[in-house]
């Protein structure tokens, strides 16, 4: 029993953090809002150079062969800077699906190689989401159709842009016709892959929301020192201290469930539903709560477009609902818990995990 990350996992997350903190600023995010795609080839080239698209691509297909557990800390860092490039979803959600099929599917294997090399991008749809993120810059789309999964070139579909409250998010609906040629999985395999995909999407969102929550609290704490009223920084007021302390408590106790979810998903994905849903619910609560308390601390400034807080706040609002909203995930934990055969109680903390 050892519930800590390895030094390598920490170092990897730290190196990505250093890179992101150096490159991604509120100014650069705002600048991206003014561009047509909202995405930057130059930044993507740097992300590729760091090997990020290849993280969860198996080594035999030209990737780094990492697991969800290896990258979950990195996903937190992407949330912390409110990264707008689609690396988390592409690397943590789309590529594992392709990797599951690649041993018996040349098309998937080829595409994985291109993704790992930074030559192709892929976006992924799911019935739980109404829209697809970053389809507009993807070369290929992974699209579900009943129990089937299709891999379709972007050129063969019609996208309609759907504007999000978060200007960093670029969303689309997809008009397309399934064909035998594009089908890469169906039946029980398709259903299982779509279920696993939902869990990966939920994990990726949960991790980013932890970073978003901590970033909002850090910004608010800083603002509470700068902003003076009654001749003192507003941060001396206990009411505001307690708003921030409450955020810290919520975020802290969302972390261990997230790490457990990453562990179970990487070791025993078929048993991950409860752990994933727990992590998604509490990370969402932490991020929404940090958003609410942060705008309150900022006062009228927090309600402006000019104040950077909304970059993080709006991403939180969006990700809390993406890859299964709280109702969906609470319902899953309820189903699990109310089963009379559920193994619950003090000696079952890792009961669902035991491998």
């Amino acid at each position, binding site marked *: 029993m050892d519930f800590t990350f390895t030094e390598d996992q920490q170092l990897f997350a730290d190196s990505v953090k250093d890179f992101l903190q150096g490159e991604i600023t509120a100014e650069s995010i705002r600048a991206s809002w003014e561009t047509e795609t909202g995405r930057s080839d130059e930044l993507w080239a740097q992300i590729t150079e760091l090997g990020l698209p290849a993280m969860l691509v198996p080594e035999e297909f030209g990737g780094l062969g990492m697991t969800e557990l290896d990258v979950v800390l990195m996903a937190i860092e992407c949330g912390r800077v409110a990264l707008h490039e689609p690396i988390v979803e592409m690397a943590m959600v789309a590529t594992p699906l392709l990797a599951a099929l690649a041993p018996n599917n040349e098309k998937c294997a080829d595409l994985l190689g291109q993704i790992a090399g930074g030559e192709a991008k892929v976006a992924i749809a799911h019935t739980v989401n109404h829209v697809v993120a970053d389809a507009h810059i993807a070369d290929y789309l992974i699209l579900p159709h009943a129990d089937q999964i299709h891999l379709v070139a972007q050129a063969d579909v019609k996208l309609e842009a759907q504007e999000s409250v978060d200007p960093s998010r670029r969303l689309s609906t997809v008009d397309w016709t399934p064909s035998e040629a594009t089908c890469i999985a169906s039946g029980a395999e398709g259903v299982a892959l779509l279920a696993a995909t939902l869990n990966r999407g939920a994990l990726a969102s949960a991790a980013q929301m932890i970073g978003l929550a901590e970033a909002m609290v850090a910004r608010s704490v800083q603002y509470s020192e700068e902003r003076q009223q009654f001749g003192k920084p507003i941060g001396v007021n206990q009411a505001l201290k307690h708003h921030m302390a409450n955020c810290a*408590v919520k975020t802290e106790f969302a972390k261990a469930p997230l790490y457990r979810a990453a562990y179970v998903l990487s070791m025993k994905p078929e048993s991950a539903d409860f752990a994933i849903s727990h992590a998604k619910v509490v990370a969402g609560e932490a991020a929404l709560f940090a958003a609410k308390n942060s705008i309150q601390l900022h006062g009228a400034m927090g309600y402006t477009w000019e104040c950077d807080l909304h970059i993080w706040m709006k991403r939180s609002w969006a990700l809390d609902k993406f890859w299964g909203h709280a109702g969906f995930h609470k319902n899953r934990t309820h189903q699990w818990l109310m089963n009379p055969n559920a193994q619950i109680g003090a000696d079952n903390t890792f009961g669902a995990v035991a491998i």
Partner: protein
Amino acid sequence: MDLNYTPEQNAFRKEVRDWLAANVPAEPLQSFDIAEGFEQHREWEKTLAEGNWGMVTWPTEYGGRACNLIEWLIFEEEYYKAKAPLRVNQNGIFLLGPTLMEYGTPEQKERFISAMASGEEMWAQGWSEPGAGSDMAAIRSTAFRDGDEYVINGQKVWSTRAVFADWVFCIFRTEQGSERHKGLSFVFVPLDAPGVTVRPIPQLDGLPGFAEIFFDDVRVPVENRLGGEGEGWSIAMATAGFERGLMLRSPARFQETAKRLVELYRENQNEIMDLTIEDAVVKSYMDAEAYALSTYQTASRLIKGGKIGAEASLNKIFWSEMDQKMHETAMSILGARAELLPHAPAAGDVGTWLEGFMFAQSGPIYAGTNEVQRNIIAERLLGMPRK
């Protein structure tokens, strides 16, 4: 990261489980807040100590098993699962014990630790005073030197279990004219010493669970001082760290409460009209699980040489408010039965929820109020300005 127990850890769990199965009293003990129940619990502490299960994390020389924190968590899980009695000497074993091991002289360790572990000597805590609650540095009770003795005068209050305990560990002002955190010392006083008066304070359930203690020219030898003269504050802070940190409230306690809550909900599911109850039950279970996961994470980190600091305040807020919420939810499920005391014939077996509910009201208050903890988090963990 490896979330599997090792074969050794599984074997340890089995050993704990087997011992508890053979030794936990079949009938629940009476409340340790009455004389008879206190003695029953003292007996139980003796039984635990005889099996070397009193404090598994302590070194073997003090009757422990030198267990690491993961093994401690396993022990606690089995302990609460077996419905073993609550620990009557928790002030001693959870708070003073670790403090003694860190700051005590060899003679003090020899004199006090084994007797504490065996239940022979029970400890109360004497820190708060009528004018020094959250603001503990406002302590006014004094212990002034007279040769090889301290002469103690003043009053302590909210001393848990002092009515039946043998000793109290206190903070007194030992330097004339000193103020605030300076000039305080950590001193042990036998509760049967001449000049000590213990007046029980009935708590919310009517039982004398705590007391006020009056000191009138009480004399104790200077050997009863823990650490150096004037170091009382920093030693007390270390003790408070143990209190808020890991040891006081292990996750197993809350996981078992959450499990009972899930069962209570299932049994009463068809009669529940309040649609929010279901969510509260699920949330309670997930929170108890989150607390357990977080504790395992902290334990793993500490085993690898990490330290726990102000983040202990996060724990204290989380478990105390979770405990309140769980019991509030149980009360809601029980409806009109909720107010019945355990011995009321119509209470059946649900009266213990009321006891837990009442005790849960004290969680956000003792061991430093949650408001004080929030200030600590904001200032020391997040860096918000003090003034």
